[in-house]
């Protein structure tokens, strides 16, 4: 048995989930949410995380009902091969589109701040080999690598939040926006969520011992709490000028730039963003690879990684390369894809669970 074949532990899955729930929501999202829901924008992640938690709970039910079967096998058994392929094809697109959006946002963040003269090629040179390596090495290696960085990620995030709290001068007046605004903003940005769909793709590659489910639920809960905290701290720090500061985590650190004589502690948040982007892109690539292999048959893993990279590079180079376009793309195009994690997959899983129950009764 090679390292690739071995399954993930509850901790590794929890950390993977922690990272994917957290990393694409701490940079541009808080500022964007302000535009729609003003200072109550932190309600948006609360609402959307409730949905996300529902998805994780559904996964828990599915894993208990189908402990050894893959998602593709479950879909094929109850809905047929065509439905399975269509769903996995859509999931494949969902993850690659999210990867493109994440890459653009990170690229523009770095281009604005520290790589003013550098090209997109340099960024691709950085990301592509690392994420491809992680993807090909397999989930186990990916999980273990994230495990090493996990204490650092949590530590730095908590540090950023604490530093951010020091920057809050007054608590602003609340309830300036209506429930309708919050709901509309939630729908507009729903595509930023639904990442826990990854759990369904790796359902057969996880070994969760009795009593270890709480690890997964706790880590996802902590991740959600941190996102909400960062959003709230950012909004309370910049209040009515929040829309002028596009990079939330970095901006809350900038506010106290020379804190304690250390100097430029905002760099810490920047490094955190880089690490998180690497991991999140690697997860997206791996999810793409897993669905690709199911859709196009059992072909070589390397071909699936190359396919991701080709599509990714082409999309990055020709479709979206500025923040405005990226945001428009995220707001106008991706919400339709959110139907997949929040409607289609849950409905299918629900049907599968009901059918399984009937089978058992018979």
């Amino acid at each position: 048995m090679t390292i690739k074949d071995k399954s993930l532990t509850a901790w590794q899955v929890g950390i993977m989930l922690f990272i994917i729930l957290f990393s694409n929501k701490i940079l541009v999202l808080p500022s964007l949410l302000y535009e729609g829901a003003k200072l109550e924008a932190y309600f948006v992640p609360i609402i959307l995380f409730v949905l996300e938690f529902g998805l994780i709970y559904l996964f828990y039910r599915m894993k208990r009902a189908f402990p050894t079967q893959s998602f593709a096998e479950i879909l094929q058994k109850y809905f047929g091969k065509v439905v399975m392929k269509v769903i996995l094809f859509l999931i494949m697109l969902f993850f690659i589109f999210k990867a493109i959006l994440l890459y653009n946002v990170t690229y523009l963040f770095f281009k604005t701040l520290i790589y003013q003269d550098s090209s997109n090629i340099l960024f691709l040179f950085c990301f592509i080999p690392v994420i491809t390596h992680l993807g090909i090495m397999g989930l186990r290696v990916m999980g273990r690598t994230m495990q090493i960085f996990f204490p650092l990620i949590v530590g730095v995030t908590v540090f950023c939040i604490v530093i951010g709290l020091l920057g809050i001068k007054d608590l602003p007046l609340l309830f300036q926006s209506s429930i309708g605004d919050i709901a509309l903003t939630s729908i507009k940005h729903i595509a930023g969520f639904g990442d826990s769909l990854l759990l369904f793709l790796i359902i057969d590659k996880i070994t969760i011992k009795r009593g270890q489910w709480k690890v997964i639920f706790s880590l996802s809960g902590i991740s959600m709490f941190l996102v909400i905290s960062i959003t709230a701290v950012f909004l309370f720090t910049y209040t009515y000028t929040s829309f002028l500061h596009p990079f939330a985590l970095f901006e809350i650190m900038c506010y106290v730039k020379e804190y304690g004589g250390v100097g430029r502690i905002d760099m810490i948040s920047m490094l955190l963003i880089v690490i998180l982007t690497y991991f999140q892109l690697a997860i997206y690539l791996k999810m793409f690879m897993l669905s690709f292999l199911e859709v196009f048959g059992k072909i070589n893993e390397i071909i699936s990684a190359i396919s991701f990279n080709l599509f990714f590079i082409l999309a990055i180079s020709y479709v979206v390369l500025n923040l405005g376009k990226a945001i428009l793309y995220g707001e106008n195009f991706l919400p339709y894809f959110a139907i997949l994690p929040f409607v289609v997959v849950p409905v299918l899983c629900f049907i599968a669970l009901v059918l399984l129950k009937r089978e058992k009764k018979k």
Partner: protein
Amino acid sequence: MDIKKQEQKFKDKLHNSIDVASRTISKNGVEVCFVYLKSITDNLVFSQSIFEPISNFEGELTFDVVKQIVKSNDVSDAKEQQVVEKILKGGVAVFLSNSEQYLIIDIQKYNTRAPSEPPTSPVIMGPREGFTEDLKTNMTLIRRHFYGEELVFEEMLIGEMTKTQVVIAYLDGVASKDIVKEIKKKLKKVKIDGVVDSYYLISLLSNRPNSILKQVGNSEKPDIVASKMLEGRIALIVDNSPIVLTIPFMFLEDLQSSNDYYTNYVYASLLRIVRLIGLFFAVVGPGAYIALQLFHHNILPIKYLITIADSTQQIPFTPFVEILFINLLFQILYEVSLRLPSYLGLATSVVGALILGDTGVKAGLISPPSVIVVAIAKIALYTVPEQASQITILQLVFMILGASLGILGLLGGIIYVIAYANSVENFGTPYLAPFSPFILSDNKDALLKVPLQDMTTRPKSFENNDEERINDD
């Protein structure tokens, strides 16, 4: 048996080498022949314990009588095809004209050095003896740590020409039988002309022989090997090598030092953290300095930026070339200092530190910050001396990454290297355990160290048979 013919046959097999000695005596019509190698046998023992008793014997000499009268406790029978092999290992072959049998008496002797403190792992407190090149001495040094019956030594011969003795040492009931079996299987498969040192076996025992990562542990100190065996590891002692190999190996082992176990546990934990920081700086430091100078000078606090800009503005080279040049200079000095006689060491230091360093800075060829960064990185490299070769390679890789891709490339490189290390497993043991996969109980003696009485179990990072180390009952 035709003694003359047989004697000549063995001599021919040994190519009439100049150290082949043979002697035939005749007693009461019975001829007795002795064949041995002068270079690896004890001449005094031969004459007093073998030759004299036989030549002075007055009765009828038979094979069984000879066996009885020689004064040695290492006497054995051998078949004709085994005789040459036994002679080559320091045995004296004795055969008689009235018998078809061969007697081998082991009187092997050669000069060995006494156990002394190994230069690679000196300690402030704790045992100072180190392994030598002699297999028997090394076995004794290990045996002295285990007077219990659990210690097992198993011998294998490796090398078509060298027939080197390799001893597999482990504690029965503690070490995993499966790993012992796997090691034997791997060693049996080895088809090599010779094993000159234990390092020859490292790549043969590694799952990924081409990897730059170290996959087999090594030590020159019996106390370290004994403590590793107590944890369930298996030791490989190779004749003619003072380095004993230990399997399975994890990166963590190099982060630990024998000093840690003979000092306060809090201080030991602190030292381990310092070693990790040192290792990290050694790998990434020069690359990060280049990246900051080339790409990200705007993220440096303004005061530091002014200082660095002040000292680098006259330098004709790019930061990468400058750092590479200083590194190369250091590596040349290091190589020279290793090979030069010790009395020339002072001259090398003067040339290196004063002439090349100081004058280079004054001439404006290299800047003081670059010298400081490289110096710190090179010193930091030796906080974990066992990993020095790997770190040097990675240092260069990270310098290239820093110069070409900046911080983004450096962080990508770090993730890549850690992911790669995570993919390495030797004898079922993850390279980065107990950090990833995270094993809580093993972290009692990992980056942090708890008092000895709290380390109640053996490591779970690798397979072993007996979990319990300290019984509270």
